[in-house]
């Protein structure tokens, strides 16, 4: 071994690299000597939480990942499912939380860029982006700045890259004050027999570097993202990368062209931990060694060391293993698009990761132990305490249901997010059948009639109160939203955002949510095909609300048969399908109107969920219902108000049934429910079908007029409601409220 150790490896230096003493011991044992600084950097990059999933892997393994439609489950750049007719849908969601808090525009931008790369690396042309954003309390002095920067960043990247951003969610809570969440999802389409993987095969093949040049930006980005924030988080700005959507658009076109020409054996994008992670994954997955000669790497800064090159997170770069003899053809395509192309190494049969720089060996490490045999922990956890069920009768009623409704629909969480999604180009590519603002976006595939339904969901306050039920609910709501537009839910990607896993109570939240997700996925036949874990979302010892975001994909055979939330005509019946019991624990009513986040969240009966969903999907397919809306945050009255505002048509509602306090009936958040409308003629058939399916069907009133009227309440003008619903966010961002 002839690797020069120019820097003394001290315990402090090891700690700075985010490696624990026992992990360093493991390194010493593994290589039988002290690592060089470059090697220490490589271990730090591969064994951090973000890249190795060391705290989460043991639990992630329990999730259901198989299914008839699954072509590729977790472990690749993105998940792949079969959507028929020789087409595959490739999708994944990933977080960019820490960078976005430090530098919101660039953090969000590179989050979108990274997830798009994950999808087109596999050979798919991206057709849609989604996101899920969580910000701190609106009162927090940084919140406006963060909302403004993150939204502009997502827009700046997606709009320029040329993919529509079609759906998402935005929420606020003081627990995100020091640690916002930016989860970005990308969805692409490829032919099922033209999917590309990271696994390299064949010895002595050229390893090619493509895309933008390497600079000193983002060094240790993944390590930063694997630690909690202390004071001075803003000083970490140099670890945030800078995105260039123009370069990425060129990279997309060049990669798809090179793939179509049959030049590619394996491909991996350079995301977290850049060159290190991409090379190790390609080698480790293919049981091959990789040798790199760093002087061949295109750089944009002078005198970069091996350490810096291996840890740079410069954006818009790819690593590829080419078929022999295809070098010239591939290079011509990249030159045409004005991108760098360099053969930087080759595959070997040694299972070693060998790094040379100007002929000198800088690192020589076992590739499997760096990659798929990284450390794994089964961290201790304590289960979250169950909270008491709140008796609805004990919860004070509002003076007026109408006032409470107006307060809810103009609250930060339930107000219209138009201010956000109008900054996203949601129309480009001409396939957006259902735009943002409904239960799920509907995006036509190629020329149709096939279409995908897409959405992201999670209710963090439920997860905090009961991780298991909250995990179930996130999956169930996603499944419900896809169902509500008429789609058959196919599969999910999960983005698990939690606090510090070294604290047993946080690990307990994580384990609880995973169990809930697992149970719901099994019951609803809704496998997890890709995902991302983001831990250490804490600032000064205070964790975020547990937030397992679920991104779902559903399939519509014909987009002409999709349903939407808007009331369509006057004189139609409004019904709720599914059982209403008036569950107020952890409801938006309790939190927003009464300022109390208390009690157990609504339990999710997965069998009931399945029955109600299958019934609704069938009614939509048969054209029996005219509008459909998932009933969730804010309960029945908020759902009805949203349908009225979307259709500019009011409704006259009947007296709520006895036995449930009216405010619990109208604002309770019982799960497994849908609000639908139908012409009178269709009612007998709908009610018979519901009865046969064992799903409660209750008539609530009739559509019509320009107001929502409830017995004994002042009439609520739909136009006025809409004004309040639409104005909170723009007013807030303009400095008001």
């Amino acid at each position, binding site marked *: 071994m002839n690797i020069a150790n120019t820097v003394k490896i001290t315990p402090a230096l090891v700690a700075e690299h985010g490696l624990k003493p026992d992990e360093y011991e493991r390194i010493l044992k593994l290589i039988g000597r002290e690592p060089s600084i470059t090697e220490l950097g490589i271990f730090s990059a591969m064994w951090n939480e973000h890249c190795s999933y060391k705290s989460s892997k043991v639990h992630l393994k329990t999730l259901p990942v198989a299914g008839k439609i699954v072509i590729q489950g977790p472990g690749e750049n993105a998940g792949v499912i079969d959507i028929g007719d020789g087409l595959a849908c490739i999708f994944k969601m990933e977080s960019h939380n820490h960078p976005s808090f430090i530098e919101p525009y660039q953090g969000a931008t590179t989050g979108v860029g990274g997830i798009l790369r994950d999808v087109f690396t596999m050979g798919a042309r991206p057709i849609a982006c989604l996101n899920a954003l969580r910000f701190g309390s609106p009162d927090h002095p940084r919140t406006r700045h963060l909302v403004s920067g993150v939204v502009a960043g997502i827009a700046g990247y997606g709009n320029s890259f040329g993919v529509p951003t079609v759906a998402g969610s935005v929420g606020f809570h003081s627990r995100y004050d020091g640690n916002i969440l930016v989860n970005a999802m990308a969805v692409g389409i490829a032919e099922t027999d033209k999917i590309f993987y990271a696994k390299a095969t064949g010895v002595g093949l050229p390893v090619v570097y493509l895309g933008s040049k390497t600079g000193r930006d983002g060094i240790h980005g993944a390590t930063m993202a694997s630690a909690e924030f202390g004071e001075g988080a803003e000083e970490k700005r140099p670890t945030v990368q800078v995105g260039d959507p123009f370069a990425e658009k*060129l990279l997309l076109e060049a990669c798809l062209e090179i793939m179509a020409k049959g030049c590619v054996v394996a491909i991996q994008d350079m995301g977290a931990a850049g060159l290190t992670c991409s090379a190790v994954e390609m080698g480790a997955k293919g049981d091959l060694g990789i040798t790199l000669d760093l002087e061949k790497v295109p750089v944009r800064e002078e005198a970069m060391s091996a350490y810096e090159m291996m840890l740079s997170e410069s954006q818009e770069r790819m690593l590829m293993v080419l078929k022999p003899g295809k070098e010239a053809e591939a290079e011509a395509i990249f030159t045409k698009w004005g991108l760098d192309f360099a053969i930087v190494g080759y595959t070997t049969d040694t299972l070693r990761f060998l790094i040379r720089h100007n002929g000198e060996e800088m690192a020589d490490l076992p590739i499997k132990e760096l990659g798929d045999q990284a450390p794994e922990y089964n961290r201790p956890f304590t289960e979250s305490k169950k909270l008491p069920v709140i008796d609805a009768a004990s919860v004070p009623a509002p003076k007026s249901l109408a006032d409470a409704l107006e307060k809810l629909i103009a609250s930060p969480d339930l107000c219209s997010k138009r201010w956000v999604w109008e*900054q996203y*180009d949601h*129309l*480009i590519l001409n*396939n957006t059948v259902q735009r943002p603002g409904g239960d799920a976006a509907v995006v036509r595939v190629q020329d149709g009639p096939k279409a995908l339904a897409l959405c992201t969901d999670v209710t963090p306050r439920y997860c905090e109160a009961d991780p298991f039920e909250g995990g179930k609910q996130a999956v169930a709501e996603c499944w419900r939203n896809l169902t509500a537009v008429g789609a058959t839910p196919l599969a999910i990607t999960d983005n698990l955002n939690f606090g510090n896993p070294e604290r047993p109570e946080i690990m307990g939240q994580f384990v609880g949510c995973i169990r809930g997700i697992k149970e719901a996925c099994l019951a609803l036949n809704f496998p997890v095909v890709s995902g991302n874990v983001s831990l250490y979302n804490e600032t000064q010892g205070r964790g975020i609300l547990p937030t397992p975001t679920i991104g779902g994909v559903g399939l519509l055979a014909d987009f002409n048969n999709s349903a939407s939330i808007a009331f369509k005509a006057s004189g139609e019946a409004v019904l709720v399908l599914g059982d209403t019991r008036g569950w107020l624990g952890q409801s938006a009513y309790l939190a927003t109107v009464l300022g109390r986040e208390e009690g157990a969240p609504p339990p999710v009966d997965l069998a009931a969920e399945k029955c109600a969903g299958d019934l609704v999907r069938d009614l939509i397919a048969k054209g029996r219902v005219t509008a459909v809306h998932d009933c969730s945050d804010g309960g029945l009255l908020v759902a009805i108000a949203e349908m009225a505002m979307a259709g500019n048509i009011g409704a006259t509602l009947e007296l709520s049934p006895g036995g449930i306090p009216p405010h619990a009936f109208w604002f309770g958040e019982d799960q497994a429910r849908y609000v639908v409308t139908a012409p009178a003629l269709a009612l007998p058939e709908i009610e018979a079908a519901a009865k046969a399916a064992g799903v409660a069907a209750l008539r609530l009133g009739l559509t019509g007029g320009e107001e929502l009227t409830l017995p004994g309440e002042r009439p609520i003008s739909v136009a006025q409601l809409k004004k309040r619903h639409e104005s909170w966010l723009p007013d807030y961002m303009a400095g008001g409220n």
Partner: protein
Amino acid sequence: MNAAVVLFPGSNREGDVASAIKRISGKTANIVWHADSELPSGTDLVVLPGGFSYGDYLRCGAIAARAPIMNAVRAHAERGGLVLGICNGFQILCEAQLLPGVLQRNAKLRFMCKEVYLRVERSDTPYTRRYNAGDVLKIPVAHGEGNYTADKETIERLEGDGRVLFRYVSPEGKTDAAWNYNGATNAIAGILSEKLNVLGLMPHPENHVDPAIGPTDGRGLFESIKSVLEAA
């Protein structure tokens, strides 16, 4: 209709406009690479599509305006050929000085994707003969820098010569600052060259031609072009 859609690095609505052309004329547009120096022979319509050519670096459209293909586009325009610049294409036409004025950042300094209302100011042009003057169209915009302006004399000349073809208006067809989202001078959404053969506009008629996706008010523009070229 033999359309050539120019593809610059960073263009991203070339597919949308090509599919609108196909839908309305039945003919497939040629996609022409920015580094080429000639248009395909027989080209009778050049389209500069939307997108972020060269990443909007320097200024929107500034680098694309100097691409090799632009000499051929200029020559085509000088011969009286039709040139349609949409969104980034409009910005490129201004930078290439095929149209006067500039497109500044939107008054609210944010990117904006939404349906707006446009009034057709005259119907005796190659782009609007299938509309009536005064028609109000619902067409989407998707831009961050669409706030049109020019010096006072230029604006007066454009207005005096009837070269303002589309204006942002209320649903009832009235000019109103509240409906002029990007803050354009005189609510200008699209202008013509002196010979009326070059049109630049910020909104995207190509995104409103398919009833499955939304309104179809954009069809008239492509139908007008088709009827002019087929009559020629």
